[in-house]
């Protein structure tokens, strides 16, 4: 019931953002409807386009699912970006050193990614629970450290032979790649998509149906009340960090073993930060994360066509994403203000 009431202003805002996007296109002198259809065509127009969109969708799903967990615990896990990177680094390490066939290495990279992300998240967690450092600042700091480590590894110890540069480490051997499934003439990222969807399902079930999720929600909504109810709040905060970080870390695994097949300095692809926007738009609900994330990556993937076909700067895709978030945000703020206005006339302060 409340969710439906929230959905209406969101839809209105989305429509408003679309109108704004069309106006923007008119201002720069581009044919708006051709541009929009290019966006769709560029992300879903062919088998290979759909495959590319799905491949970008998976890490965003994983990172978003992780964030739903930490948001449920009331945490601003800005460190998600660093957790993706550390997951990617850990997975790269396994891919580089673990011998054996794919069915050994690939699960190994997934596990390593989860551990790498979880450890990095727990660092931010301990800084918060034991050091009194707000997770926004701890997380941001750790983001920078993780990005620094990735760059250091790529141009340092893990540099490729010969022309070592920003292009990344050597390509992993084929066994360490996440397997693709060939159909309609292209390879499909079945494993990443399954991981992404499974993570969303896991988070949904955890928050809807388990004591862990309920306690997490309770800690997130009111940690003092929860403490008085006898919930070990710090343990739950750390649990949320670990789980959220593990999922973000697996997003990092997908980035290295399914997309780049090597470690590059900008390995996270900014999916951590994008995931924050996705989760905010989804109203912190796991169920809405999947379609919204798909919508976002479709814009990202499709906007390449605007550049290729119309000579339009493809930053337009980013601008459109930003505009959508702004409109939905203002829509939400407006609805919230109206609600609290009507409530405050009935309530004492």
């Amino acid at each position: 019931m409340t969710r439906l009431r929230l959905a209406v202003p969101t839809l209105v805002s989305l429509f408003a953002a679309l109108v704004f996007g069309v106006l923007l296109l008119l201002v720069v002198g581009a044919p708006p409807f051709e541009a929009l259809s290019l966006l769709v065509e560029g992300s879903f127009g062919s088998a290979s386009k759909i495959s590319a969109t799905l491949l970008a969708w998976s890490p965003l799903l994983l990172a978003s699912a992780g964030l739903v967990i930490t948001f449920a615990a009331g945490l601003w896990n800005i460190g998600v970006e660093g957790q993706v990177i550390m997951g990617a680094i850990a997975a790269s390490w396994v891919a580089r050193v673990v011998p054996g066939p794919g069915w050994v290495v690939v699960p190994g990279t997934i596990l390593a990614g989860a551990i790498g992300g979880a450890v990095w998240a727990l660092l931010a967690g301990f800084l918060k629970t034991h050091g009194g450092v707000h997770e926004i600042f701890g997380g941001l700091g750790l983001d920078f450290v993780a990005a620094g480590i990735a760059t250091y590894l790529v141009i340092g110890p893990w540099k490729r032979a010969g022309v070592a540069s920003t292009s990344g480490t050597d390509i992993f051997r084929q066994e360490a790649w996440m397997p693709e499934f060939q159909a309609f003439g292209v390879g499909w990222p079945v494993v990443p998509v399954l991981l992404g969807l499974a993570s969303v399902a896991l988070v949904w079930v955890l928050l809807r149906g388990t004591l862990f999720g309920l306690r997490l929600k309770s800690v997130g909504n009111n940690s003092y009340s929860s403490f008085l109810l006898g919930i070990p709040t710090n343990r739950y905060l750390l649990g949320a960090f670990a789980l959220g970080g593990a999922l973000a870390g697996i997003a990092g695994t997908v980035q290295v073993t399914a997309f780049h097949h090597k470690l590059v300095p900008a390995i996270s692809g900014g999916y951590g930060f994008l995931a924050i926007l996705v989760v905010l738009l989804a109203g912190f609900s796991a169920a809405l994360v999947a379609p919204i994330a798909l919508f976002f990556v479709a814009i990202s993937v499709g906007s390449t066509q605007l550049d290729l076909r119309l000579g339009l700067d493809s930053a337009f895709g980013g601008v459109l994403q930003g505009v959508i978030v702004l409109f939905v945000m203002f829509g939400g703020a407006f609805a919230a203000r109206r609600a609290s206005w009507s409530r405050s006339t009935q309530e004492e302060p």
Partner: protein
Amino acid sequence: MALEIRDIHKYFGPVRASDGVSFTIESGTLHGILGENGAGKSTLMKILSGFYEADSGEVVLDGEVLDLRSPADAIEAGIGMLHQDPLVFLPFSVLDNFVLGSPGGIHLDRSEAQSELARVSADLGFHFDPAVAAGDLTVGERQQLAITRLMWLGAKVLIFDEPTTGISATQRVQLFTTLKRLAQDGLIVLFVSHKLEEVEELCDSVTVIRQGKVVYEADMPVPSETLVAEMFGKIFVQEDHASIETGAPLLVCRDLVLDEGTTHIEALDFEIASGEVVGLAGLEGSGQRTLLRACAGLIDPTGGTLTVDGTDLTGASYRDHLHAGVHYLPAGRLEEGLVEGISIAEHLVLVSDDASFFIDWKKAEEVATKEIDEYSIKGRPDSNAETLSGGNQQRLLLAMIPDEVRLLLLEHPTRGLDVESAAYVWTRLLERRERGTSIMFASADLDELLRYSDRIVVFFGGDIFAVRDAAETDGEELGYLIGGKERV
């Protein structure tokens, strides 16, 4: 010159904080405003000093109707207020604090300000080092600084809100001297307090406020019992309450020393027997909450021991207390009891001790339905805590108390509840004492204290002032004790 307050109304939702208040004070008067906590004193003073806007009514000073929309308006009109904790910027110097908020432009002539500070403070008999940081001043000196500043800004009416909280006896004497002098100089001084003694000692006239209304006005002196009666209203004539046989000591405090903020409780020797109900009386902030929180394990004692049911819990964690059967129900139901955004059924799952990892929502709903029925909660299993009324939130909190609890610690268990809900809450609580649970509760409601307690502990000024058997005291005596006076 006179300050006239005409029919002021101020509602917060259904709460009538000021309900048609009118009175007049002539200049040169030191006027007391008396009332118990929540009577509406503070609201009225905040309206006078521009922090709140009244819904209706007028404030008239020297024949002129004032338009008070902000504290700056009030100061410009000549009304200044000193808060309980003087609003002083601690890291700033005395001089900076003095010139802060002065009506001048951006330009600040420091040497002129310094000589002004010296002049005004000398007039008042104060002395400051302008360069010292305000944080190094005592609370009393901060008050003096705030008074100096308000006088410099041209205040004609000075409001003092509980000014003796947290200052030493000598500073109190000095403050009182100052107040008397200010009144003699022709100012209107409003002295807001709930301490009878101080009002009796100081004030020329008094207004008593109860439930947002002026219930009594008189020139001093007035007999204490009159003031007590007017402050607390009709005092409940005590019925015989169902006293039951109490058992062995459950809670034992030996030489307990507690410190929390300005509250200091020294060497408390105190026992509660199994099945006993102990009421904690006193004005808010007098130390009751400190004792309750210490017994719940939320503050560590600085000395002595605390034992529950033979187990030494001195310095043990909150969760250890919880496991030992100590349950604490604070006053803020939605701030420190229930969780917003979580439903009745979910709250009950959170406190149930046999919940499995995967929640059986069908069972949870059944449990919730049962408890809703049993505790007559107006709400559905999926109603979120914040959608319930205060009474129903309290009922939910009662339903969440575990069965095997040994010691119940309650803060204002019936505050804000209607009569029916309050009676219901106590019915449920008293059922528990029959099973041997001890109850310690803090309340501002004398009626409630007298009706349900076996013993009443009265706090005053951060320490225990008196302990009375409920059967051997009455509302009148409690009124005195709460005001810090023995009945004469």
